[in-house]
């Protein structure tokens, strides 16, 4: 209070010229601030360009919808693969209960190999009737690569259509754009824009994006996503070596553990049980079918629990009252997102969403600002 009263007394005792200078200084400061703020504000885009942007917006929305449908279609290939394989469940069960299976079982008991020979026999039967790890890996890669290639094709068609839209317009600023001279030039300019908008999109989506998001090499992305999903599925199925790749042999043997247990019981008594109407082949076929469905579900939709926890963490990332918890939840959720436990559907949707955001930002910059820097 003492300071305030001293300040007020001093202010009152100022001479007129001093007051005038003080007022002038304050006014000059306010004007400078207003000028600075005005200059730092982004320049309003040309209304004609805004109109043009609005014209091509439906095309972008349509491209997004097409991308979603394409993803669904490619995912169906994976479902079809498993539907086809389930037809062989009974063949596998008959093979497992056949003379070969019984011989492998007896041989293992005599040699005391802890059931290894029998497991090896079942593994070979599984691979013969269903798939090997490599088959599944190749299928996954083919689904992802096929999807990315088709999305890229759709994007190229979209760019051609947009360029045609832009060329039809009588806008001097746009007509001078070198990018509009040919489809190739337009595509190159678009790629440059993509690279420029990466930092903005990374910041908005709170993710780290590299140049590969622009280059969009399908096989590289497919390989990375396949490894992620395969590792996650292997962990969920309790397969240490991984169901795909090098660990396939041990993987499928472990995968069939329920079948092995079923066989150990059924194999010994099947002929007695058949007499009283028990169907060991049907039981084993059912178990194998259920295992195949579980693998399919994990590959396609991921682990339901992982989805629940992931959504919860994303919610905490935005809504937790404590900043430290918010930041830790964000990091943990990012880790889950890149862990492959959320399934192929999620991965494809994420890739599509990312591409749409990049595409929209790049085209917006290209059309509204004519390729110039912000």
């Amino acid at each position: 209070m003492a300071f305030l009263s001293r300040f007020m007394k001093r202010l009152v005792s100022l001479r007129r010229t001093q007051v005038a200078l003080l007022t002038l200084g304050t006014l000059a400061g306010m004007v400078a601030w207003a000028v600075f703020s005005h200059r730092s504000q982004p320049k309003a885009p040309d209304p004609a360009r805004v109109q043009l942007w609005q014209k091509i917006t439906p095309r972008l929305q349509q491209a997004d919808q097409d991308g979603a449908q394409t993803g669904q279609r490619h995912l169906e290939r994976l479902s079809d693969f498993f539907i086809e394989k389930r037809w062989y469940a009974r063949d596998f069960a008959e093979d497992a209960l056949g003379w070969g299976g019984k011989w492998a079982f007896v041989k293992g008991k005599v040699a005391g190999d802890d059931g290894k020979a029998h497991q090896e026999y079942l593994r070979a039967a599984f691979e013969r009737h269903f798939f090997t790890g490599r088959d599944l890996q190749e299928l996954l890669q083919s689904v992802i690569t096929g999807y990315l290639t088709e999305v890229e094709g759709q994007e190229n068609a979209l760019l051609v259509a947009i360029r045609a839209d832009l060329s039809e317009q009588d806008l001097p600023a746009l007509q001078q754009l070198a990018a509009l001279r040919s489809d190739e030039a337009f595509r190159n300019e678009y790629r440059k824009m993509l690279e420029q908008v990466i930092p903005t999109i990374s910041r908005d989506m709170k993710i780290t994006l590299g140049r590969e998001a622009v280059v969009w090499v399908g096989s590289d992305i497919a390989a990375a996503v396949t490894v992620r999903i395969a590792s996650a599925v292997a962990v969920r199925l309790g397969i240490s070596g991984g169901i795909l790749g090098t660990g396939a042999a041990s993987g499928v043997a472990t995968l069939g553990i329920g079948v092995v247990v079923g066989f150990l019981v059924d194999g010994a008594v099947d002929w007695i049980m058949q007499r009283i109407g028990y169907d060991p082949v049907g039981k084993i076929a059912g178990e194998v079918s259920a295992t195949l469905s579980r693998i399919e579900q994990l590959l396609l939709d991921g682990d339901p629990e992982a989805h629940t926890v992931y959504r919860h963490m994303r919610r905490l990332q935005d809504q937790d009252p404590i900043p430290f918890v918010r930041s830790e939840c964000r990091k943990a959720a990012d880790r889950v997102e890149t862990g492959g436990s959320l399934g192929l559907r999620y991965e494809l949707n994420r890739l599509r969403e990312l591409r749409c955001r990049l595409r929209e930002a790049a085209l917006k910059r290209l059309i509204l600002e004519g390729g110039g820097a912000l």
Partner: protein
Amino acid sequence: MKWLKRLLRWIGKRLLMVLLVALAFKAAQTICWRNQVRLVPPPSLDSWDPTERVEAAWEAARKYGGGKE
């Protein structure tokens, strides 16, 4: 003012004790979570305790995200 000093010292001691007990409790709880001791319930994302929410988030990251921190 002597009584005030004594009061402050008394409060300080109690606060320190509470802090030490809380630290020991959290340390023991974290060890149990990391070693998945069944008697102690696993950390929950819905807990009132922020450290438990963070622990639950990282446990989920370890479980579903490849296990690296």
